[in-house]
């Protein structure tokens, strides 16, 4: 069984919890639908977003050069990181050079991908995640399970226990208002004390050399505007040509993610405040490789909205942790094998190829098509179990030889009719929750030969 399937098996042991998880995420999908339908131009916006991103990828280096000039002229220090390790080292070096120890971090899937927190901790630097969902999972020593709602897999009781342990909230308290207030007080202290703030980046704008950070909580700003040093981290694919394009992306982003017209804060950073250092770390970590894969480069258009997660019937019933990668869900399936094919060879098979993801994606990534294509690549590279390979080869033989196919079909039906226990048992995964189909005495072909081309007209 694949890693994902094993994790999903365990996840599905608690059916009531699966139902709750599924309903929670379906609710997000419904909110997204309502927001999409409120804009008659929704599909036109998706087309624009997709086109702008396609254009940007085709001119990526040019836009970065334009961006760099402007940004550096405005006092932003730019760093380039070839991989996760270099990214982490750059961040560490900035912190060490400035002798900084109290760090707050707002949501950045890029820093999750690079495993920044454990690296900094190993080097004696504690980082406090300030997005409420991220703070919760940080206290619990778990990774986030969704790129927008990190703690969506947790119930209020779980959070109550965690906060009681870490913040001293009342034992047994579960009211979200009460718990959020406790987090507000706790994190407010951290913001005020923070020496450095690490943030993610939603969009970098080539035209002006600035970048945009979107949050609902205000945590990115509470960190960045008080700390002496602001370090913003981003993947190199997240640059767009012009400020005006934000009109398209900001109209799509929050609606796709949570059904809101826009996030509470869409902060545009162009220069450090007086006396502050502002750093931007631009990360490759496999993105340039993905850029070179004609079948998969579209995945780099992603604006990390999470809509594909919310709509995916498989994600909703298996949970983010079953994808064993920083970014999971449907988009994770097409990004992760590029980063580490061996570790993520199971992911392209964690899908029924239903296509819902492709159709909610605000930037029109052909996600389900890419999932199918990754399956071919994974198999071609040899990341498939021998048993499965042999089974498929046998099936291919049978289905390529009409006489063999007919014989196998006949035998199979006979076995099912005469000795059903051979199929109806624990060794047959189908049989775990489903009855086998009834085996008819004759196949259609056999009927057709008897009754001829004329058929039977009643």
């Amino acid at each position, binding site marked *: 069984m*694949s890693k994902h*399937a094993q994790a*999903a*098996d365990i*996840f599905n042991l608690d059916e009531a919890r*699966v139902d709750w998880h*599924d309903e929670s995420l*379906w609710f997000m999908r419904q909110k997204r*639908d309502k927001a*999409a*339908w409120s804009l008659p131009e929704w*599909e036109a916006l998706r087309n624009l977003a997709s086109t702008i991103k396609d254009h940007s990828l085709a001119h990526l280096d040019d836009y970065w050069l334009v961006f760099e000039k402007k940004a550096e002229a405005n006092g932003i220090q730019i760093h380039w990181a070839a991989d996760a390790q270099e990214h982490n080292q750059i961040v560490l070096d900035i912190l060490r050079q400035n002798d900084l120890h109290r760090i707050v971090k707002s949501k950045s899937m890029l820093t999750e991908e690079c495993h920044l927190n454990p690296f900094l901790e190993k080097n004696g630097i504690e980082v406090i995640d300030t997005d409420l969902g991220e703070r919760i999972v940080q206290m619990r020593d778990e990774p986030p399970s969704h790129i927008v709602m990190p703690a969506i897999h947790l119930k209020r009781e779980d959070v109550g226990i965690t906060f009681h342990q870490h913040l001293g909230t009342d034992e047994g308290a579960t009211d979200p208002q009460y718990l959020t207030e406790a987090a507000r007080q706790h994190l407010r202290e951290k913001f005020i004390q923070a020496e450095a703030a690490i943030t993610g980046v939603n969009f970098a704008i080539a035209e002006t050399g600035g970048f945009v950070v979107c949050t609902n909580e205000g945590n990115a700003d509470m960190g960045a505007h008080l700390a002496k040093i602001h370090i913003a981290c981003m993947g190199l694919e997240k640059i767009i040509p012009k400020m005006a394009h934000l009109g398209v992306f900001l109209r799509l982003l929050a609606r796709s993610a949570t059904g809101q017209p826009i996030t509470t804060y869409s902060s545009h950073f162009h220069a450090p405040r007086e006396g502050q250092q502002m750093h931007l770390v631009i990360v490759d970590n496999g993105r340039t490789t993905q850029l070179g894969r004609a079948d998969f480069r579209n995945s780099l258009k992603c604006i990390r909205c999470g809509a594909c997660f919310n709509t995916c*019937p*498989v994600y909703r*019933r298996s949970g983010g942790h079953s994808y064993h990668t920083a970014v999971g869900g449907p988009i994770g399936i097409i990004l992760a094998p590029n980063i580490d094919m061996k570790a993520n060879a199971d992911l392209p*098979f*964690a*899908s*029924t*190829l*239903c*296509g*819902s993801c*492709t*159709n909610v994606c605000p930037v029109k990534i052909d996600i389900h098509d890419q999932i*199918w294509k990754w399956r*071919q*690549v994974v*198999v*071609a590279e040899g990341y*498939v179990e021998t048993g*499965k390979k042999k089974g*498929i*080869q046998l*099936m*291919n033989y049978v*289905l*390529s*030889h*009409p006489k063999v196919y007919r014989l196998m*079909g006949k035998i199979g*039906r006979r076995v099912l009719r005469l000795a059903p226990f051979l199929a109806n048992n624990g060794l047959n*995964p*189908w049989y775990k*929750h*489903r*009855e086998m*189909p009834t085996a*008819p005495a*004759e196949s*259609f*072909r056999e*009927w*057709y*030969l008897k009754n001829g*081309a004329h*058929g*039977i*007209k*009643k």
Partner: protein
Amino acid sequence: MKVGLFIPCYVDQFYPQVAIAVLELLQAQGCEVGYPLDQTCCGQPMANSGFAAIAGDCNANFLRNFAGYDYIVTPSGSCALHLKEHVLPHEANSSYQVYELCEFLTDVLQVSSIQARFPHRVGFHNSCHGQRMMGLSSMSERVLPAFSKPLSLLDQVAGLEIATLDRSDECCGFGGTFCVSEEAISSKMGKDRVEDHRSKNVEYITGGDMSCLMHMEGILRRQKSPIKVIHIAEILNAR
């Protein structure tokens, strides 16, 4: 017009009555229907498992069997899609005109008065590949005008009552080999689909793909439910 009937392998073996219904339906509409005797499978099971590269012989068998027909019609959106996207483009064979059954009836034959009667309450399952990829109907994800080729056909059936579901186009969870490789999720998805129909008091669940229906039937039978599955062809052919 000469129509070549392509019957999905699992329909040939397990649900011959569906194939018979398709044959009768097409003949009743005046088609000259041929059934190539050496057909096997569209090749999806291999391709969707990542083995498209070895399915050449299976593809060749299809091309051999179905050369020379004006149209090739199959009662399966997923088989039709696979043929069009992965088998036919390799051959640059524009002469192979593959259609899923419902779209053939609405788009080519332009059927407007099916003589059928099926006085039952039915839930319609939108099979994913047919719906989202072949365009058999609009989908809940898109902000586009609503339409449905299968429902426009069912609308013509006397006595038929179609239930409104909570989730009109969520995947049933069959997904090919997914049904066994990710069994827990597959059966949970199927169970949830079935419950949506059951809670709307349907007598039958119907749709355009027998694979989805076979999966849901497996769950219904395990639950000892009185709900039966039936392919849309059987309803359109019902008297």
